């Protein structure tokens, strides 16, 4: 059912006309007002994303990446402009834009299974029978290889496992867009690499549209079709967008020697550390 566009066909998004984009962020501003002070976090952000595309957003800490993701998720309202999914304006959160949160945010009183099942019941309550929902929950846990721990509670499993369950919970809702907020940020390097491979496999298999926030250059290059680089806040905007023309499936060890990989890596590094190096704001 998920029609996957060829991610290597870069004409699909090179110059997307408005009507063609799957997800469109259109002249979005975001300001937070607290009392009499207003701080502009995002200014005039424009981005079009094609169906099936894997887009990373990279930028220094505090520039507004999570804010941007929350806007797409509908968890925070835009100040001006609009987020459009399939030409419909996003103005509330919903399961078609599932989020994997920075700190897993599994519900600690539910088992691994019940955490995933809760979303499945909510989304497919009317569409699938009880048994189908059970099978679907298990299938998604197996997809992230967490079937063996289905009866454990979040407190009983490792950080990497929690993040897997978070991904399973999001995938099980069959979202149109999967939003990942620094999904591997809190993990050790080995677990992180392992989960990155896993996510690549899942993306290859299901062809979902993914937007992932990261501050890890290698992660961005390895996983993405495009890398969106954000300038420093306040009033951050999109500084540059980089196409990653690496063939898939991508193998970690082969990529690191690949000329295109190195080119992309350097481009992102230059952007982050030369032109928009991190300055600790006084605020």
């Amino acid at each position, binding site marked *: 059912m998920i029609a996957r566009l060829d991610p290597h066909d870069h004409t699909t998004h090179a110059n997307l006309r408005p009507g063609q984009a799957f997800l469109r962020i259109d002249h979005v501003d975001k300001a937070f007002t607290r009392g009499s002070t207003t701080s502009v976090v995002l200014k005039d952000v424009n981005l079009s994303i094609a169906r099936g595309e894997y887009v990373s957003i990279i930028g220094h800490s505090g520039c507004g990446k999570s804010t941007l993701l929350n806007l797409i998720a509908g*968890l925070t309202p835009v100040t001006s402009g609009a987020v459009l999914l399939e030409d419909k304006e996003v103005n509330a959160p919903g399961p078609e834009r599932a989020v994997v949160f920075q700190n897993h*945010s599994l*519900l600690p009183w539910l088992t691994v299974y019940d955490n995933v099942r809760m979303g499945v019941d*909510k989304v497919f309550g009317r569409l699938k029978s009880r048994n*189908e929902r059970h*099978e679907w929950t298990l299938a998604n846990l*197996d997809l992230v*290889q967490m079937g063996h721990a289905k009866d454990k509670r979040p407190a009983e499993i490792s950080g990497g496992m929690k993040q897997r369950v978070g991904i399973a919970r999001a995938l099980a809702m*069959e979202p149109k867009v999967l939003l990942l907020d620094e999904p591997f940020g809190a993990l050790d390097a080995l677990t992180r690499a392992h989960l990155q491979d896993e996510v690549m496999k899942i993306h290859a298999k299901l062809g979902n549209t993914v937007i992932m926030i990261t501050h890890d250059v290698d992660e961005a290059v390895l996983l993405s079709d495009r890398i969106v680089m954000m300038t420093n806040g306040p009033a951050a905007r999109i500084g540059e967008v980089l196409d990653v023309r690496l063939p898939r499936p991508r193998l970690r060890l082969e990529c690191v020697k690949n000329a295109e990989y190195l080119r992309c890596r350097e481009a992102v590094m230059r952007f982050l550390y030369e032109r928009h190096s991190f300055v600790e704001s006084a605020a």
Partner: protein
Amino acid sequence: MSAILLKPEAFQQASPTATAVPTPRAEIIALPPKRATESQLVKRLNSMFVTVVPPLVVLALMLLAWELACAGPKAALPAPSRIWAEAHDLVTQPFFVNGPQDIGLGWRVLTSLQRVAIGFGIAALVGVLLGAFVGQSVWAMRGLDPIFQVLRTVPPLAWLPLSLAAFRDSAPSAIFVIFITSVWPIIINTAVGIRNIPQDYRNVSAVLRLSHFEFFWRIMIPSAAPYIFTGLRIGIGLSWLAIVAAEMLTGGVGIGFFIWDAWNSSRLSDIVVALAYIGTVGFILDRLVAFVGELATRGTATA
């Protein structure tokens, strides 16, 4: 559409258990059966010894001191030996029935517990619902919290006249006194628990589009459960404290009224025994709620 995910062969390469070729397994060596049973028993006895013996020693010393202090014939209070002589039947036979008003203290405690169960049950229900409301709304919190903080300090006895005037009947007044004494800590703790629900859980429920009812039942209550049970634990203690005040006006056969009655006929020994009953039951109630709370919030505390 689910077929994409359900194809089992898709997982084979990734999951080692699915490979057809049996991999050489590590040899399983049977460990010698643990000597756990024996040493664990010793350990448990030991820990019981450590928790039970010190309070018994202290109790014995206190009784001794009391005995010595009240030994003289002019002592205002009865010494333990005299209490035992006068009222040991109350201890040894908690469940005798000699007539409608002359029954064992065990029966009296049960009667009082029934009263407390009703008052506290209503307090728990109202307290959690009202607390959830107060915790959800910033303005309700601002408006109501100071008032609750003042009302919660009013002692049970002070509610009595108002309660009687309002209900014009002793039975509901007694239950109201128990209710009004124990409801405040439940409201306040629930509200704090609701306020402390992590934004993450709210985001999760927003993405899932949970209804208000589902949010209340599946997120708010479990997330605030540790706080709620703290409130319930304080509440059950207070409602048991209110029983004497409440039963002063209902009369009948409760343990609270028994004390009032014993005082009016100067049976001091009976009062002391009744106090021991009340203290023991209060202790058990407290532990009971704590135990239920521990069961119910397993996992929640260690997020």
